[in-house]
């Protein structure tokens, strides 16, 4: 409005000596811009709430949203999301005055539905938003299911997908109409079962390397190994399963071990940092295999287990308590996004990092 008024009724510039002719117009400029910005943010927020509501309604009706690439997703490719993420991390790591801390954290909790009563420390003891974000919880806030035949959730979040992976080219559905390969997600793994029928229990107990296995064709194995009674054959077969859990900004962001687990290696893919919200999963191809991620692989009582912690724009770095020296979301040395993953084997001769069910193993950090 201020701009419009200014252009419609041009007035002589106020001189140093004389003026004051346009001072009233200028005084409208800042409030006008502020009001326009607030209105714009309000409209965007309302639109987002409306979209979320519509999505929720569709989900309740059982209508599954399909993959649908759009212009915004293409535009995201052009943005320096990693730099923006690090900038966000820098800002959120700044120390907040003690008197202001409870107000900011309460506002955050209101906006993202966090439960502040679970926080282990009083709010004014979190020096920065980043510290608050990866806060620990009060003792007993997350009881661990102690059942011996149960796998527990490693994080707080929303279950997006789960199921069994079948066939040699096992695919995980990102959203209806688009899937990605588990091998692309985890990388070339010596432990990942490759058998199509899921009967891969020998992977656990025998030390046959992938190379050796690939050299033996199925008929050679069949002829060389006559059918004899084998005590291990009375054990149930094993299938390969997956579960995808999404963490909203207000969720507790520490990662725990889903079972008693021996982690044998860690793989770090330095990729992009797209957002991972519901809209992004519907519009960005290969979201999970393009984003920066840390893969932990190892063995548990039932065989193979891998956990992929995938970063996003606002929560870009992944911290491992079992390997504090690992730093993710660093400035890139190369422009290309297809760098090979950096891998570290924990220990040697199969001795890795032993974790008990429920042990903390890492956290997602801001920026």
């Amino acid at each position: 409005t201020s701009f419009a008024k200014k252009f419609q009724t041009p007035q002589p510039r106020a001189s140093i000596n004389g003026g004051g002719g346009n001072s009233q117009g200028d005084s409208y400029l800042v409030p006008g811009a502020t009001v326009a910005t607030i209105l714009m943010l309000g409209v965007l927020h309302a639109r987002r709430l409306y979209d979320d509501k519509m999505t929720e309604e569709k989900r309740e009706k059982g209508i599954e949203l399909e993959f649908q690439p759009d212009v915004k997703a293409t535009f995201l490719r052009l943005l320096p999301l990693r730099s923006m993420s690090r900038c966000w991390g820098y800002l959120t790591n700044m120390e907040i005055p003690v008197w202001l801390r409870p107000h900011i954290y309460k506002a955050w909790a209101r906006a993202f539905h966090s439960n502040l009563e679970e926080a282990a420390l009083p709010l004014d003891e979190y020096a920065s938003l980043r510290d608050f974000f990866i806060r620990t919880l009060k003792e007993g806030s997350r009881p661990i299911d102690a059942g011996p035949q149960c796998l527990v959730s490693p994080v707080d979040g929303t279950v997006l997908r789960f199921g069994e992976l079948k066939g040699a080219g096992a695919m995980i559905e990102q959203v209806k109409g688009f899937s990605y390969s588990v091998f692309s997600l985890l990388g070339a793994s010596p432990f990942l079962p490759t058998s199509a029928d899921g009967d891969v229990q020998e992977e656990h107990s025998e030390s046959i390397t992938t190379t050796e296995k690939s050299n033996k064709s199925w008929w050679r194995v069949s002829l060389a190994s006559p059918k004899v009674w084998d005590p291990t054959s009375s054990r149930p077969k094993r299938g390969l399963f997956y579960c995808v859990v999404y963490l909203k900004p207000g969720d507790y962001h520490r990662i725990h071990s889903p079972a008693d687990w021996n982690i044998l290696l860690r793989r770090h893919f330095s990729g992009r940092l797209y957002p991972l919200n519901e809209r992004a999963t519907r519009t960005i191809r290969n979201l999970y295999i393009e984003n920066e991620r840390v893969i932990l692989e190892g063995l548990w009582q039932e065989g193979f287990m891998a956990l992929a912690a995938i970063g996003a724009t606002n929560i870009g770095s992944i911290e491992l308590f079992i390997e504090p020296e690992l730093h993710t979301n660093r400035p890139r040395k190369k422009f290309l996004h297809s760098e090979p993953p950096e891998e570290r084997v924990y220990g040697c001769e199969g001795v890795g990092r032993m974790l008990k069910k429920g042990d903390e193993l890492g956290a997602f950090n801001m920026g």
Partner: protein
Amino acid sequence: STVVLVFQAPISKLHEDESSQEFRFCVRRGDRIRVGEALGRWHSS
């Protein structure tokens, strides 16, 4: 942020169809879950 868990778990020895799996997820799509709550269970036969 997102976590993808990939793991082996027991399935029935005789049949491999959905109904005879021994490992079963005890969550549904869209469920809220917290650390330590069961994702799935299995029963040894």
